[in-house]
C-alpha cells in the first residue's frame, strides 16, 4: 500500500522539479524586505556581498596564497650535504654476484621485521609475476660508487635467468631511486614507461613518513607497474624459467647437461627418495622371499608303477653317452650311439 504512494510522490516531485520555475522577487518585495532589515539566504546567494565590504575583503584575503617560510640555512645545508659512498666492505655483497634474495640489504638498514615483511612481499611478487623485482637498499645519504653503472651492472648479472627489474632504493630518500631492467626487458619496454613507473612509485612514498613504510609503498606500486608492463608484453616473451619463490644463483659458467641431470637426480631423490626407498625395500624383500621360496621348494613326482625291463629290478633307463676325448669336436659330434657289439668287433 505504501509503495504506490511513495512512487507517486517521487514521480510528482520529479515532475514539479522539472517544471517549477525558480523563485523570483516580485515588484516591491525586495525593497520591503530590505526595509525590514533581513533577507533570507542573502549571505548564501551572495546577493549582498557588495554591500558588506569587510566581509568581501576577508573572503579575498582567504583566497590569497599562503606565504611559505623560506628554507632555513640548515635545510639548505642538508640538501647540499655531500653523500657518503657505500662502505667498501659491502661492495662485494651488493655488486659482485647475482643476488640469491630479492631484497639486498647487507648493511642491515632495515630491521629484521621490516626486512622479512619486505622480502615476503617480493617473493610473493616473484611467484605471481614473470618479472622479478630486486631491491637494493642503500642509506639516505649514501651513494653508489661511480664505477657502478646500473645498466652495465644489470646487464652483467641479470642477462640470464628470469627477466628482472632492479631498483637501487635510498632509504628515506626515495626520489633518488634508480631502476634498470634486465636486457631481455629493456629493449621491449620504452624508457618513458620505465620513468613513469618510477615516478608513480616515488609518488606513493610521499604519503608515508616512515622510511620502511615508504619502501613498502614503493615496492607495492612498482609491483603493480611491473604487472602492467608484463601485460603489455604478454605474448612477446616467455619467462626463461618458471616462477619460483626463491631465486637460485646463476652460475657463471654455462651449465652442462650432466650437471642438470645430477641436479634433477638430487631433486628427485630429495622429493621421492623416502617413498622410492620404501618401495625398493619392499620389492627387494619380496624378491628375496621369492628366491628363498624357490630355493626351498621341493618337487615330487607321481610314483607310477613301471614294469621291469631286461630283468632289472631297479632301473633300465639308459641315458645318453658322451665322449670328451676331443676338444675340437662339439658335444653333439661326440655323442656315443655306437652299439656295444660293433665296438667289440
Amino acid at each position, binding site marked *: 500500500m505504501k509503495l504506490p504512494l511513495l512512487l507517486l510522490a517521487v514521480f510528482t516531485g520529479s515532475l514539479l522539479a522539472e517544471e517549477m520555475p525558480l523563485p523570483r522577487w516580485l515588484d516591491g518585495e525586495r525593497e520591503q524586505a530590505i526595509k525590514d532589515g533581513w533577507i533570507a539566504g542573502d549571505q548564501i546567494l551572495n546577493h549582498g556581498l557588495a554591500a558588506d565590504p569587510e566581509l568581501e575583503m576577508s573572503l579575498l584575503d582567504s583566497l590569497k596564497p599562503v606565504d611559505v617560510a623560506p628554507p632555513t640555512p640548515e635545510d639548505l645545508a642538508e640538501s647540499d650535504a655531500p653523500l657518503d659512498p657505500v662502505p667498501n666492505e659491502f661492495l662485494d655483497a651488493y655488486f659482485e654476484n647475482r643476488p640469491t634474495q630479492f631484497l639486498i640489504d647487507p648493511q642491515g638498514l632495515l630491521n629484521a621485521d621490516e626486512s622479512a615483511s619486505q622480502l615476503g612481499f617480493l617473493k610473493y611478487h616473484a611467484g605471481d609475476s614473470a618479472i622479478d623485482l630486486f631491491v637494493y637498499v642503500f642509506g639516505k645519504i649514501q651513494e653508489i660508487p661511480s664505477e657502478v653503472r646500473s645498466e652495465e651492472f644489470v646487464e652483467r648479472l641479470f642477462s640470464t635467468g628470469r627477466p628482472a627489474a632492479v631498483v637501487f632504493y635510498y632509504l628515506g630518500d626515495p626520489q633518488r631511486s634508480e631502476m634498470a631492467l634486465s636486457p631481455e626487458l629493456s629493449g621491449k619496454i620504452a624508457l618513458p614507461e620505465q620513468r613513469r613507473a618510477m615516478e608513480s612509485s616515488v609518488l606513493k612514498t610521499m604519503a608515508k613518513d616512515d622510511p620502511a613504510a615508504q619502501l613498502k609503498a614503493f615496492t607495492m606500486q612498482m609491483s603493480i607497474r611491473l604487472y602492467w608492463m608484463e601485460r603489455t608484453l604478454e605474448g612477446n616473451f616467455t619467462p626463461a624459467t618458471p616462477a619460483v619463490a626463491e631465486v637460485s644463483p646463476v652460475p657463471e659458467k654455462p651449465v652442462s647437461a650432466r650437471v642438470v641431470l645430477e641436479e634433477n637426480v638430487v631433486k628427485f631423490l630429495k622429493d621421492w627418495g623416502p617413498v622410492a626407498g620404501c618401495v625398493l625395500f619392499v620389492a627387494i624383500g619380496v624378491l628375496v622371499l621369492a628366491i628363498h621360496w624357490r630355493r*626351498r*621348494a*621341493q*618337487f*615330487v*613326482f*607321481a*610314483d*607310477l608303477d*613301471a*614294469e*621291469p*625291463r*631286461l*630283468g*632289472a*629290478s*631297479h*632301473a*633300465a*633307463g*639308459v*641315458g*645318453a*653317452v*658322451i*665322449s*670328451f*676325448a676331443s*676338444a675340437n669336436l662339439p*658335444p*653333439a659330434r*661326440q*655323442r*656315443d*650311439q*655306437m*652299439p*656295444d*657289439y660293433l*665296438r*667289440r668287433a
Partner: protein
Amino acid sequence: MKCPRCVQQIHRAAESCPHCGFTLADADFAFGAEEVRLRRLTDAAGLIRRGDRARVEAALAKFSRSFPQLFFAVYTGSLGEVANIRQFGFWLLNRGAFEDVPVEIPNEAGILLTIDPESKAATITFGYLLDPYLDQADTFLSLSRAHAHWLEGKYADGIVRLVDHLAGVLKKRSRQARRDPERFEKKHQPAASKRDLIKKIRSGHQTSNSRPSKSQEVAR
C-alpha cells in the same frame, strides 16, 4: 627306451632285448651278480680333488633337498677296454647299495652318473621312477653342460653344472606333471602285448556279433 648293449629301441615291458636278447643277467655275467656297496659320491678313479669334493657333495645334497624322493650318485672309475659304460651304468644302478642314501629311497629313484676317464666317456642311468619324466635328450643336454669342463680336466665343475642342469629339467617336468598328469601317465603305460591285442580284437568282434544288426532286426 634303448637297450644298453645294441642301443636299439625296446618296448616298456620287454623281458629281454628283442634285438640282441640282452638282460641284466648278461651284465651280471660281465661285472658280477653280487651287491656292490658304494657311496653317493664314489670317486674310484680319483678325478675329484680334495678341495672340490665338498662342492660336489653339496651339489648332490642340494639335489636331494629339492627332490626328496630322489638321489643323485656319481661314480668315476676306469672300466677297461672291454667294458661298455652304458651296460656298466645300467648294472651299477641295479646292483649298487648306496650307503649314504636313506633306506626309504630305493634305487628306482636314483640317477647315476658314470664317468670313465680312461675311455673319456660319461653316461647317465636313471631308475624306473623317472622313466616318464626323463629321456635320452635330457640326459645328453645335461652331459653337454659338463663337456667343456671335463675336456679341461675340471671334473668337479662339470659334475656340479650337470647336476644343476638336470635339476632344472626335473623341476620343469615336475611342474608340468602337476599341471597335466595324464600326459606322463600315458607316456608311462606299457605297450600292449600281441596277446592283449588279439584278445581285444576278439572281444570287440564278439561284442559286435552279439549285438543284432539292423538287417537282422528288420528280418524279425
